[in-house]
């Protein structure tokens, strides 16, 4: 294998795959990155057996071949080269080390043959569709905060992505819940996604995917089966196992009979929550909302530190139903309000029932919050 590539290109790809490399290092070769040259193209790959990332990189290649070297070391060496350096990688084959040259710098890295490197085969993927990076970012950003970290209910440790119907229209839906809050976001169902199996995309995959989507404006291709999902994002291909479990029937917990609607400016509200909850030393920081006609009073008490309250009047609040008192964890309120635009809408049933929250201007995303006793 022999090639030349410029430092910036190489470093960017290495930074991407670096994240995927197994951190705990239970299997030594998983700390390595796979470099392969074939048909004039360089590909860089890493896997932790759950997720695999392959990135194709522009390079001028002169000999095919493949080898693996420690990802962290290679990244560090490339990173330390001068900005516009051209880097040459040369591996003659067999057990020889990988030679890296850049200007007058030269190194030989101990390399392990690709035989031991896990095969990154996604198997047969039954469904394939395209979605804009912007839409995919939205599905992720508005749900990932609700992903559970609980071990016992492992099937909640990801985003449930599935095809559904909303008011007669087919939609691609993302749902996440940790039992205390639930987020449901949807997009028009892309062509090719009809009939796809519902899949649970693991939290780590969601995190890596989101990083890769950062600078992307094009469409992302998603291909999936019941056990694997693959995202093709420009020159990158992220393949992941899916969580093998059944996501609970979330439709049963989305309240339908709630009728008390509170509208409040999102920033006014979240600032008030932060100010009021600052008094509480408890982990959950309960905040009580007392809602009356065009009036919202937020309050919190701490047995050690005292009390705090803040009023939002008709300049900020619209409410016409019967008065209600209800409590929530401050963090849950803030996590949800971060996902909505200028005005947030709470739809209550009573002080102890799950509450529906949504962006007053965008009904495609809904959130459900479990109240807590205050």
């Amino acid at each position, binding site marked *: 294998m022999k090639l030349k590539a410029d430092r910036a290109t190489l470093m960017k790809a290495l930074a991407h795959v670096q994240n995927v490399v197994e951190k705990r290092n239970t299997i030594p070769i998983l700390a390595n990155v796979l470099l392969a040259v074939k048909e004039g193209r360089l590909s860089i790959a890493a896997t932790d057996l759950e997720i695999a990332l392959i990135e194709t990189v522009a390079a001028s290649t002169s000999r095919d071949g493949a080898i693996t070297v420690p990802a962290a070391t290679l990244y560090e060496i490339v990173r330390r080269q001068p900005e516009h350096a051209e880097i040459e990688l040369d591996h003659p084959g067999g057990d020889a080390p990988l030679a890296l040259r850049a200007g007058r710098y030269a190194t030989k890295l101990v390399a392990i043959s690709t035989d031991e490197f896990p095969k990154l085969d996604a198997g047969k993927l039954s469904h394939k569709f395209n979605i804009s990076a912007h839409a995919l970012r939205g599905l992720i950003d508005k749900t990932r905060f609700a992903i*559970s970290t*609980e*071990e*016992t*209910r492992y099937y*909640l440790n990801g985003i449930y992505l599935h095809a559904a119907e909303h008011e007669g229209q087919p939609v691609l839906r993302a749902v996440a*819940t*940790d*039992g*205390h*809050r*639930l987020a449901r976001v949807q997009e028009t169902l892309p062509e090719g996604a009809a009939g796809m199996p519902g899949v649970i995309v693991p939290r780590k995959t969601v995190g890596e995917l989101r990083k890769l989507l950062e600078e992307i404006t094009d469409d992302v291709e998603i291909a999936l089966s019941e056990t694997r999902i693959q995202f093709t994002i420009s020159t990158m291909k992220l393949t992941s196992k899916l969580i093998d479990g059944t996501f*609970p029937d*979330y439709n*049963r*917990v989305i309240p339908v009979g709630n009728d008390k609607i509170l509208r409040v400016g999102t920033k006014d509200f979240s600032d008030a929550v932060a100010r009021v909850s600052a008094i509480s030393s408890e982990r959950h920081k309960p905040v009580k909302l007392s809602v009356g006609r065009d009036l919202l009073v937020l309050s919190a008490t701490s047995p050690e530190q005292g009390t705090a309250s803040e009023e939002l009047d008709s300049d900020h609040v619209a409410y016409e139903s019967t008065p209600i008192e209800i409590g929530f964890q401050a963090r849950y309120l803030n996590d949800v309000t971060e996902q909505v635009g200028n005005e947030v809408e709470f739809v209550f049933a009573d002080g102890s029932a*799950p509450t529906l929250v949504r962006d007053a201007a965008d009904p495609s995303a809904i959130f*459900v919050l*479990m109240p807590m*006793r205050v």
Partner: protein
Amino acid sequence: MQALCRDCDRALAAPAGSCPHCGGHRIVAHEQLFELAIAHVDCDAFYASVEKAYRPELRDRPVIVGGGTRGVVAACCYIARLSGVRSAMPMFKALKLCPDAVVIRPDMARYAEAARAVRALMAPLTPLVQPLSIDEAVLDLSGTQALHNAPPAAVLSRFARAVERDIGITISVGLAPNRLLAKLAAERDKPRGFYVFGAEAAAILAPEPVGLLPGIGPAMQRTLAARGITRLGQLAGLSSREAMRLCGPDGPHLAARARGEDSRPVDPRRITKSISAEMTFETDLRDLAKLEAYLWPLCEKLGRRLRAEGFAALGLTLKLKTSDFSSFTRAIKLANPTMLPDLIFSAAQPVLKREIGASSFRLIGIGASHLVSERLADQGDLADTQTPRLVARQTAIDDLRARFGPGAIGKGRALRPAKPSAV
């Protein structure tokens, strides 16, 4: 010197060999006897004493409460102790030392009832009663002299005789200026004792080994011994700086305790921090299915105890003891507080499963931690609509058992194990 006759509760003008009023010989005397107000009350050989009170014919026999040849001694009476039997000793060893002992399987319901009776007698003494375990409590009698028209020492002496008369068991009382010294005092004159620690406590404790202090276990003893400290007096003599240098951040606190200082108040609110149930097997087990069969009744028992105490658990601890007697625990975090046996089992089972393989086990236990109020228990959540149904089912099971006995209804998986061998 202040003195009191423990047979008639009268104050005596001076310490004497016998009471001039009733002729009793149980005289307690101390410089501060009528001023001290913190008492530690500990029932003597509690389980064994309750059994003897229940079966008077056993009064003069050595009695061991515990189970099976593989179990351990849960309690032993003072006659059995003469042969060298001690609590927590393996049963086979106890029976070797005391072959004619009467071995009784523990009857927790009976002990719980006796404990409630003892606590009922404490209630009129002071509102500040803090139960520490089934057979121990600490009482703050400060300011009760006018109420009882008697100093705390006399009130406690009367209480001790009331327990003997009404419940048929004996207690030991430690009276001191604080909780730590009261506990140490109660241990000093067992059984049927009454010991007082006042200002002289530090001097009396100085030659004692550091292990006497609650909180200094074998590991800390080794650490201290390595630094040349084996007696409480040495620990007490350390300045805060020296103590911190020698024993780490807890050092100054340990030194203060070695001097007999303790500022913990008596807190009558329940302070239960954990509730647990465990069982030793007749033969060592390594098979998951068999271990699960023992785990299930323990989960049921734990659920019952949580309900009885008004708690729900946010955490669990699985305890296992291997055949070479080394024990270890695994902590489990729960998403929502529970007292349901099914949820306790389903959280503990995968953790147990991970431990299967290398070793065989002689004991399994399950404990509840991070306790919260029962009001928060088993409410289900957005991802769990099953739990409220489980609650309804458990309530039905409990009702049936309350009416027709514990064997009236049970889960299929409860049918597999042999009878538990010990508690």
